[in-house]
Structures are given as structure tokens and as C-alpha cells.
């Protein structure tokens, strides 16, 4: 059981800055995120794209922003729990008992949901029969690549994941790479490598094809792919890999008794608390009249929600408003030595 003052759900910029604001007012927090890394949409969707509307930072990338925020919260030694999705919340005696999908448990005074547009899940094939094979011979990510050795693998997708795995697996397996168009979103050098491997007969590239059907009993045996013009090809396949990026789903948050409006959580604008006492929502996931889905709004929301958490974490103490420029206590918390 992890005991702390506040649990933040979501390690995007809003969640990270909220951790800073909690630290400044003397509250401890831990952060859970479904992804395997910190940064949320900034890292998952646009690590290299510049952002131009962070106050006082004329231009920075999603990755730089994330790194700066991590630097900023360093003094507070925030503990991260990555690859974890919060599943269940239960209130007991003014505390929240939280459980993740892997069974990790937390005992906290308040919860801040900074979940963006939900948790990222792999986008799946639209062909219904694919579900049957998921986890046995059809995968959306690779955990153990040794199972593919000397097998026939059909990889779908045109991004870096699809290209990188096609290149790597072509060393030890018989690889088909199937993509819906001639263009690829993956790195130019990988695209060239794929074309070279195809020319050398070390990999079979099928463009303008998409999955049509899949067949097999326990395991996949063959798949059919369909060309834009209608032609159908049958390919023997032992395994299928789909790399179509990630989609965002609210997931378990829907079951927590919160007021949900169009995939967002309704909050008040005084402290960004939801309709449930002790649960706050900030950043893209919250909604209120005039809400702007900007990172800078998430920072503001996080600052107020952090203060809203105080009365739950330290019910017998009074929170005093202080500036970091002049507050000795705040500076001590930041580890500043004069």
C-alpha cells in the first residue's frame, strides 16, 4: 500500500505542474500513468513539434516542456508509477483507496485526475474476427520477439513502429509489410530500408492494401488483404502485428460516479473539484464554462486544485498563501540554499 497525500492520475504537463504546486504547499503526491513514459500527449503525440503558447517560453517542443517540468519538480522527489491504469476507487473514512490494473494500491486524501483525453490504448483492426486471435497470434505491441523466429509475420501500418519492427524481424522471420497507401509516416531512412529489403526479396511490401479477413482455428493461418481497386490477395501468416498508433479512451473514469459531459469531467472553477468530494479534475479532461484546452489553462487549474486538496490532506491546518520569491518555507521545500 502506497500512502501519500494526493494521487495524480496522468503524467502530462498538467499533472506534472500540479505536483509542483502540491510540493510548494507541503503536500506529497505520487503520479500514475498508463503510458510507459512521462509527458502525456506532449510525448506521445508531438514530442518534436514546437509549442508556441507556453507563457514566457516563446518556443519549445513537447519533449523540452516535459523535461523542464521534471526538472522543476525534482526537489519534491515525486514517485511515478508508469504502465499503470487506475481502475477502482473506494472511499473509506475520509481517505481514498485506489487500485490499479496491476493490483497496486494507494491510500490517499485526495485524487487529481489530469488524464488528458483518457488513457492511450492501441488502435485495433476493424475486422471483427481479429479479436479471436488477440494475445495469441495477433498483437498490437511486442513483448517477446523470440516467438517470431522463422515464422511468417504480417505487419500492418506505416509509422515508425511498423517500419522498425518490419526491418528488425526481417532478419529472422518471413515478413509481409502491409500499408494502406504508398506514403509512410515513419522516418525517411526506414522507408528507404524497407524498399531496399523488398527489392532484395528479404521482405514483401504490399501498399494500398488493407486487412480484409483473417482465418484459422486456434491460431491464425491465413489472412486476406484487399487492394484499393478491389483485388484480394491471400497470405499465409503465423502472426499478425498491427501498429496503428494509439487512441484515447476515458476507460474506468466513467465508473467513478463523476458528472461526465462529452468525454470530459465537470468541475467547479473555484478549485476544480468534481461533484465527488476529494476528487479533482484538471487539464484537457475537465470541463466548465469557457474551458480552453491549453496547457497554460491546465497549469492554472493544477495550482488551484492543489490548494483544494490541502483541506483533505491536512484538515487541522490552515493554508497560508505565499510567494516562492519571498517564502522561506517554500524555498526550503524547493531545496534552495542561500
Amino acid at each position: 500500500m502506497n500512502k501519500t497525500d494526493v494521487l495524480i492520475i496522468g503524467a502530462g504537463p498538467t499533472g506534472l505542474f500540479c505536483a509542483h504546486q502540491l510540493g510548494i504547499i507541503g503536500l506529497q503526491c505520487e503520479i500514475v500513468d498508463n503510458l510507459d513514459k512521462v509527458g502525456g500527449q506532449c510525448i506521445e503525440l508531438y514530442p518534436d513539434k514546437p509549442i508556441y503558447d507556453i507563457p514566457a517560453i516563446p518556443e519549445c517542443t513537447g519533449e523540452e516542456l516535459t523535461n523542464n517540468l521534471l526538472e522543476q519538480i525534482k526537489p519534491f522527489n515525486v514517485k511515478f508509477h508508469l504502465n499503470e491504469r487506475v481502475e477502482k476507487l473506494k472511499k473509506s473514512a475520509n481517505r481514498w483507496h485506489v487500485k490499479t490494473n496491476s493490483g497496486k494500491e494507494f491510500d490517499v486524501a485526495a485524487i487529481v485526475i489530469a488524464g488528458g483525453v483518457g488513457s492511450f490504448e492501441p488502435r485495433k483492426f476493424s475486422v471483427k474476427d481479429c479479436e479471436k486471435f488477440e494475445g495469441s497470434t495477433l498483437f498490437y505491441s511486442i513483448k517477446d520477439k523470440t516467438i517470431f523466429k522463422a515464422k511468417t509475420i504480417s505487419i500492418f501500418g506505416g509509422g515508425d513502429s511498423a517500419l522498425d519492427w518490419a526491418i528488425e524481424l526481417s532478419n529472422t522471420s518471413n515478413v509481409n509489410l502491409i500499408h494502406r497507401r504508398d506514403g509512410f509516416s515513419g522516418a525517411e531512412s526506414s522507408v528507404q530500408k524497407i524498399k531496399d529489403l523488398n527489392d532484395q526479396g528479404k521482405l514483401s511490401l504490399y501498399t494500398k492494401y488493407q486487412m480484409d479477413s483473417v482465418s484459422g482455428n486456434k491460431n491464425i493461418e491465413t489472412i486476406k488483404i484487399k487492394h484499393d481497386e478491389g483485388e484480394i490477395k491471400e497470405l499465409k501468416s503465423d502472426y499478425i502485428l498491427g501498429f496503428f498508433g494509439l487512441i484515447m479512451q476515458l476507460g474506468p473514469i466513467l465508473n467513478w460516479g463523476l458528472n461526465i459531459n462529452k468525454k470530459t469531467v465537470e468541475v467547479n472553477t473555484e478549485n476544480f473539484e468534481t461533484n465527488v468530494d476529494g476528487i479533482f479534475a484538471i487539464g484537457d479532461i475537465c470541463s466548465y464554462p469557457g474551458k480552453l484546452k491549453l496547457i497554460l489553462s491546465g497549469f492554472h487549474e493544477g495550482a488551484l486544485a492543489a490548494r483544494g486538496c490541502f483541506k483533505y490532506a491536512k484538515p487541522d491546518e490552515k493554508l497560508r498563501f505565499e510567494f516562492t520569491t519571498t517564502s522561506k518555507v517554500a524555498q526550503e521545500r524547493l531545496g534552495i540554499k542561500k
Partner: protein
Amino acid sequence: MAKITYNTHDNKIHTIDVQNGLTVMEGAVQNDIPGIDADCGGGMACATCHVYVNEEWLDKLPAKEDGEEDMLDMAFEPKSNSRLSCQLTVSDDLDGLEVNIPSKQC
């Protein structure tokens, strides 16, 4: 102003006057037309405002910017007439545009 027709997957036809300057996505969202999620709010960072454009309109629309086709790779059942509706800005030229909304966005 342009009349935009949204055909939803339940075979309902919604014809709406959409102001110039809004996007086809915003026209749908503001008028509660079901089937367009627009998770990222128009940032071309997801593919949940995916629509199929009627063939006759394909050439009349502004060309796809870099990135739109990449995003469409991630759409649910993309086809050659797929577009992201957040990238289609409404003007008088789009009067009469007809789009079909897919059965789901993800």
C-alpha cells in the same frame, strides 16, 4: 455560409448551415451531430473526426496538408475519400458539401 450535409451511420441525413471560417468538424460538433468525436479539438493530433467525402467533392476540397494523411493511417477504416473534418474550413465554395460519417471513430 455553406450548407453541409452530414450523413450519419444510422442513415440519417443532417443538412446544416455552417458559418464560413468554422471547420466541417466544428459544424458537426456544435450541432450535436453524432459520430464525430474530435478528441484533440482540431489539432490534427488524433483521427477521430474522420469523414468520407462524396466523390464529386474530392477534387474541390483544399489539398491535404502534411500530416493529415499520416493521421488518417490511424483512422477507423480509412478509404481513398477519407478526410479529417477538422482540416476542412468552410467557405462559400463548400456550399453543398456532403460527407459520410463512419460507423465509429476508433
